[in-house]
């Protein structure tokens, strides 16, 4: 079956090679997995900077006590939109972009299985974010009720609310299409001989992530649709005065929201599992148990949502259940960290930029994991909940976790994509600045949270001044460092030393992507490779 499809696709698209559209049409009507992957990645980079700008405004306002820059309502818009843009605009599309580029290359396919849907799933995104960001210009401004959109507060929004809801619908549709495409591609288009257990870990992590997306994005769509009808059509899903239940929204939202957390980290797990063996010159330790660990985490992610709601009032039995199920996640996550460590153990390590990001990921993601374990303990969560401790926790797993994973992937595969090596000194400078200042930015936030500073406040009591200043300085420096990343990418696209097919010749790159020239041909594998 896989062989037939691969063969057919190769045959059908054979003629296109010399007549590919050029100019704007190449991008607008693209059905090519690499061009669409590039568009996803560029889009997510733009969103990373838009969301980052909002973060800079937040950190500037919190630099010292008192309001200096923006009104509290505008501040709430900043925190809300920063989260929405970073989650749905930066992290998720960057992973889909990487999947578009790498899944066909890693499984030996000519392209994605559903190329036209691929085009649609990308081109929905600019419209979704135009609507979302356009809400800044509506009366009352952008959504300000937090990215979690809890009613009844979100129902007080002005004209931004329907824009928020429709933008979320569009992002959800885009994600579901992207996920279906990845599942269909992986299930049907693997090269002959590549059984599932021989498949690279990046594809495995994305296969599982795709199922999570298909399972939970419709749940989010349902939740926001109920918000819409509550607001405009007089329903009372979440309105207690009409017999509704505001906590039901939280249950539905976090049933989406917790798997969403793993949607944003599992592909990074896959990336780290690709990078570490290459630069340790040693195969991944316990590859099979790594796959089982990802699958266990994915399963557990569906039964832990209640830990976001301990303070909202929950029966004792539910508190105990969600505490214990949440703690269980530490077991497969621990297996992953131990296996990565064992991969480096007795290896032969070199420290190219992708490896540096992978190592930083190991340390800093683990710190996020530790605070996650502490947050799982219900009684202590009553203290941590909704303070900066939580902010520190999820930024540790999302910035030096997910974002460092994406950056590691870019540094790993960029020469493959462009055919050029990049400026190693610039890359290492970018790494060290990012790795140092991400800690200056987020580590003090643990202290702030423990000392009792709530999150999502525009101004604070004076005893929180010192750590906020440190955090803001780290934030500005981290933000500025990211400009180096853009300069490096532009330089690398424009030219540079030619990259070989294997790119990392001195190391041990394994996988089909390294058998193709850099950059790979327009239709990746026109003849399916044979896996032994």
């Amino acid at each position, binding site marked *: 079956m896989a062989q037939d499809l691969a063969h057919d696709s190769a045959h059908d698209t054979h003629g296109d090679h010399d007549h590919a559209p050029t100019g704007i049409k190449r991008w607008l009507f693209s059905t090519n997995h690499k061009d669409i992957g590039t568009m996803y990645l560029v889009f997510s980079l733009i969103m990373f900077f838009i969301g980052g700008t909002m973060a800079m405004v937040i950190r500037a306002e919190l630099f010292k006590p*008192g309001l200096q820059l923006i009104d509290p309502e505008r501040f709430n818009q900043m925190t809300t939109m920063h989260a929405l843009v970073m989650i749905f605009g930066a992290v998720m599309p960057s992973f889909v972009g990487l999947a578009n580029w790498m899944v066909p290359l890693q499984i030996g396919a000519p392209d994605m299985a559903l190329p036209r849907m691929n085009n649609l799933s990308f081109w929905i995104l600019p419209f979704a974010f135009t609507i979302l960001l356009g809400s800044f210009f509506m009366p009352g401004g952008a959504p300000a009720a937090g990215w979690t959109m809890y009613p009844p*507060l979100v129902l007080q929004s002005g004209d931004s609310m329907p824009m928020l809801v429709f933008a979320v619908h569009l992002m959800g549709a885009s994600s579901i299409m992207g996920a279906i495409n990845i599942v269909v591609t992986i299930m049907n288009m693997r090269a002959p001989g590549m059984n599932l257990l021989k498949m690279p870990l990046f594809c495995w992590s994305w296969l599982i992530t795709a199922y999570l997306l298909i399972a939970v994005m419709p749940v989010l769509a349902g939740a926001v649709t109920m918000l819409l009808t509550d607001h405009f059509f007089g329903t009372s899903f979440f309105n207690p005065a009409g017999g509704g239940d505001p906590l039901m929204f939280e249950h539905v939202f976090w049933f989406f929201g917790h798997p969403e957390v793993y949607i944003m980290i599992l592909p990074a797990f896959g990336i780290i599992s690709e990078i570490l063996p290459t630069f340790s010159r040693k195969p991944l330790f316990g590859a099979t148990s790594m796959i089982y660990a990802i699958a266990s985490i994915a399963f557990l992610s569906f039964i832990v949502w209640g830990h976001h709601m301990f303070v909202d009032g929950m029966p004792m039995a539910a*508190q105990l259940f969600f505490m214990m199920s949440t703690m269980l996640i530490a077991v497969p996550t621990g297996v992953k960290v131990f296996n990565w*460590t064992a991969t480096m153990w007795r*290896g032969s390590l070199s420290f190219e930029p992708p490896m540096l990001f992978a190592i930083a990921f190991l340390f800093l993601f683990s710190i996020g994991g530790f605070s996650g374990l502490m947050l799982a*303990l219900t009684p202590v969560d009553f*203290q941590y909940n909704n303070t900066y401790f939580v902010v520190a926790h999820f930024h540790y797993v999302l910035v030096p976790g997910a974002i460092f994973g994406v950056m590691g992937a870019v540094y790993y595969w960029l020469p493959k994509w462009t055919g050029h090596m990049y400026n190693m000194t610039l890359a290492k400078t970018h790494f060290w600045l990012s790795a140092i200042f991400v800690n200056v930015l987020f580590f003090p936030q643990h202290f702030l949270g423990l000392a009792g500073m*709530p999150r999502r406040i525009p101004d604070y009591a004076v*005893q929180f001044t010192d750590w906020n200043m440190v955090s803001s300085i780290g934030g500005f420096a981290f933000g500025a460092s990211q400009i180096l990343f853009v300069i490096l990418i532009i330089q690398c696209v424009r030219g540079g030393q030619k990259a070989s097919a294997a790119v990392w010749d001195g190391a041990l790159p394994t996988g089909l992507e390294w058998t193709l020239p850099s950059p790979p041909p327009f239709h990746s594998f026109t003849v399916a490779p044979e896996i032994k």
Partner: protein
Amino acid sequence: MSASASDNRAHRPRGLFLDRIGKAAAALGATAASATAGANTSNGYNLPVGVTQLSRDIYDLHMEAFWICVGIAIVVFGAMIYSLVKFRASQGAVADTTMLHSTKVEIAWTIVPVVILVVMAIPAAELILRMEDMRNSDLSIRVTGYQWKWQYQYMDAGAGIDFFSTLKQDSNFARELHSGIDPNSVPNYLLNVDHPLVVPSGTKVRIILTSGDVIHAWYVPDFGLKRSAVPGFINELWFKVDPGKEGIYRGQCAALCGRDHGYMPVVVDVRTPDDFKKWVDDQKAQLKQAAVPTSDAPRSAQALN
């Protein structure tokens, strides 16, 4: 009442102390008690130990979890750092490519974490049971969150006492955009209210929590307490402040509740049972005087149900 000795415990007195001496008289304002310094027991970078049995148990559990994490970090990060130093290609390290997996080791590092988790979960579960035990409370107070203030309605011995608690005026002026007022010059900036909740020490106080509009959260770090105030729902929580730990304890709303979410502090004035009784009698006397000419229609319109 002036700045008390507990001032030293406020974790960052810089700029505050001198100002407080100067402003103490001005701050005497409406409620004498609210001019005292916060008795926050946090050292500025860790959880407060607090002044209730529950808050101390939470602190202990927090520290236990913290040290377990530190222990795991030493082992795991140690192994990582050892690899980074010892197995460098530049030092001529040769990779052992036969090291693919080891069932024994993998089973071990699945079982050991499970054991550690059980060790952590047992005291946590035991603590949950005690936190949820609402029986035998001596004083119940209904707390209702509104945008952006708290309403305190006493039951039992304080039945009839009913007031709102909002951000104190000096903070409210200073917090405006471009106010030109230095927050360091305002005593207990953003953590001070006009009418704090007054409770007796050594007494099991039950809070019955709800909201009149959106979701808020009632949060006093030193009591180890935080729960959401959800419209249409009643949440219960309890605390019992140790005798001898009377003072002012401060917290804030901890659930995003709109524009002024950052400006609805929770301030609890803990008094000895005798002083509390005096306060209750005093309040009731005032109520009696006030009850004759005025109607409480606006208040009852805002109350629930």
